[in-house]
């Protein structure tokens, strides 16, 4: 019976009849504090729902007229020609690909690394080291993204050349690693590395919190059964922390998907009519960087609408990703206790 959270296990898991957890009797004393707090909490909940709905409505209202005038296929076209209000032609295929692949790559780097750092801090590091290490990682989160962008573009980029040449030489026959002649400091692959560093603190901080919450009983039980430290982590800590790690990954993914300035500074955009390439060693633009890059020249409503419709897709994409994460977490929950 773990009592770390003050709630007994019987309260949390459905019993054999499959009944829902006990909801409590929702009793209220009717006192002022009770009503105030209840009202404030309810209000906050309503505000956030209203906010998201309003943003969604704003995006839709602005995007629909331009989408109606668009004579290209919005989802599959690679063109982006919005300068002539009477002849709009824009599609998001390229933006979608670059946004998704750069974020996925960033996750592939940041999540394993973040989980390892969190495990180090909670289970391996000596006490004197754990605290400063945790603070250092949190500090990374406070660095503004423009700084990451400039640092990546000006300082680190030049050292990425050998990495890129290595991958192209070894795996260049796979379309994903094809050589496109783009300079190393301005490719999707490189920005993914920078994005990974940016989301590392989010993944690490949240994972650290959940790993630290692993019930001591679980860990001691594993050790008592003869597990080594790594086996204990694998059988007790990781399963317990899984929903937390997934949440952390989704928060990080949200940041990677929406990152604007760093992407804008690092990745080269492609000229119109450039051939399609799956390569991660190519330039491109994400939804966010494309909108930000052109925001200074929104001179007609139809043009603004075209960019906002790209923003709408990003909004929906983030929504879908988060929904999937929720489902995964809900499914896993039953197995963690």
């Amino acid at each position, binding site marked *: 019976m773990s009592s770390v959270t003050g709630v007994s296990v019987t309260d949390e898991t459905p019993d054999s009849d499959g009944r829902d957890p006990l909801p409590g009797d929702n009793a209220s004393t009717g006192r002022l504090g009770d009503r105030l707090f209840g009202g404030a909490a309810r209000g906050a909940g309503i505000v956030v729902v209203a906010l998201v709905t309003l943003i969604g409505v704003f995006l839709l209202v602005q995007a629909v007229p331009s989408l109606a005038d668009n004579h290209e296929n919005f989802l599959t076209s690679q063109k982006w020609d919005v300068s*002539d209000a009477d002849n709009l032609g824009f599609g998001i295929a390229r933006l979608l690909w670059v946004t998704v692949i750069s974020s996925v790559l960033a996750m592939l780097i940041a999540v394993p690394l973040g989980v390892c750092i969190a495990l180090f801090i909670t289970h391996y590091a000596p006490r004197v080291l754990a605290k400063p290490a945790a603070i250092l990682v949190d500090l990374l989160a406070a660095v503004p993204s423009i700084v990451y962008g400039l640092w990546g573009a000006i300082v680190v980029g030049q050292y990425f050349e050998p990495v890129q040449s290595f991958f192209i030489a070894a795996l260049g026959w796979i379309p994903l690693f094809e050589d496109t002649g783009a*300079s190393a400091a301005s490719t999707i692959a490189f920005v993914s590395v920078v994005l990974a560093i940016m989301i590392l603190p989010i993944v690490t901080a949240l994972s650290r919190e959940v790993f630290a919450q692993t019930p001591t009983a679980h860990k001691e039980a594993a050790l008592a059964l003869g597990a080594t430290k790594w086996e204990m982590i694998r059988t007790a800590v990781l399963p317990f922390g899984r929903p937390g790690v997934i949440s952390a990954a989704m928060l990080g993914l949200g940041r990677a998907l929406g990152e604007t300035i760093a992407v*804008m500074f690092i990745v080269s955009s*492609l*000229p119109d009519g450039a051939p399609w390439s799956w390569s991660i060693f190519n330039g491109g633009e994400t939804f966010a960087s494309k909108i930000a*890059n052109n925001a200074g020249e929104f*001179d007609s409503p139809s043009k603004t609408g075209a960019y906002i419709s790209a923003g709408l897709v990003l909004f929906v994409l983030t929504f879908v990703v988060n929904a999937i994460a929720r489902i995964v977490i809900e499914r896993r929950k039953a197995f963690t206790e």
Partner: protein
Amino acid sequence: MKITRIGRVSAVALVGALALSACGSDDNSTGSGDSTGSTSAGGTGAGAAGGDAGCGTKAITAEGSTAQDNAIQEAISGFESVCADQKVTYNATGSGDGIKKFIAGQVSFAGSDSALKSTDGKTEAQDAAKACGSPAWNIPMVTGPISIAYNLKGVDKLTLTPALLADIFQGKITTWNDPQIVAVNKGVTLPATPIKPFFRSDESGTTENFTKYLKGSAAAKWAAEPAKKWAGKGEGKAKTAGVASAVKGTEGGITYAEWGAAKDNKLGIAQIDNGAGAVELTGESAGKAIAAAKVDGQGNDLKLKLNYATKEAGTYPIVLVTYEIVCSKYKDAQTAKGVKAFLNHFASADAQKKIEEIGYAPLPDEIRSKVSTAINAIQ
């Protein structure tokens, strides 16, 4: 327990108060500029060209082109010594934004890389006139040469022709020692480095003016219509700073950028041979191109039309003219007074001389006299 809770609440309140007060003071500095100065400072306008333009006291805000940002900031700091009681702020957000704000009546004048458009379904000129209640004028003020900046180790002197530029920026010439480049660079050893052209990924007046030049001087090679959006090949980087630093970090890189940016980054600047020999980029050689420009607008609306294919010796042909867009008759007399005072200072010989040092070309005297006539006609 109680105490810590109170402490926490008061800390929050304190932070809130600080944040709010920060907002408050911010608003004051940019918003209502009712500075307590006297109105008698008019007589000291030494730099004012027209003579009758006294200083106003109403704060003037302007917004627009990033290409003229450095020049206008320089002029603003000079203006402070002329009209101490008049604040002018310029927000460099881009020509499109500036025009939008001007039409919405949020700024007193706009800076733009191109004159207000009234054709091809664009209604900027009409909208601006509606917002002003009077025709809006384009007043050329800052002329900036566009430099062709490159990064090539050991090559200090490089000459390019319009046809070569068109081919390079369309990816048709791909190495620096291409025979066509060698042919116009006799006596220069060019390496076999690949050429990496960089372009502005954001929509930019610099791109528009550079492609106007390519179209105007090498129409056979450059087919695309001039536009703010790049139509050639290469890698795109955000803003002037982006292309300049990309060229700086890339051996074999080449781009088009404002002269100041190329100078700041210590990049090589190519000489341009329009057919009358290679011309180095200097304030004087760029000024010649402006002097030869024709006035395209009516009356005091001074739209300039440049002759990009000019074959006159010693003329650097790739220049962009940025305009200040003003109302010919302001609804508010104080605003008109302030705009006139500032623009008169900006168009003065002194102020124009100063901006030459930071990478712009001064307005030639002939154009400058037309400009000050127009400024003095603002009501």
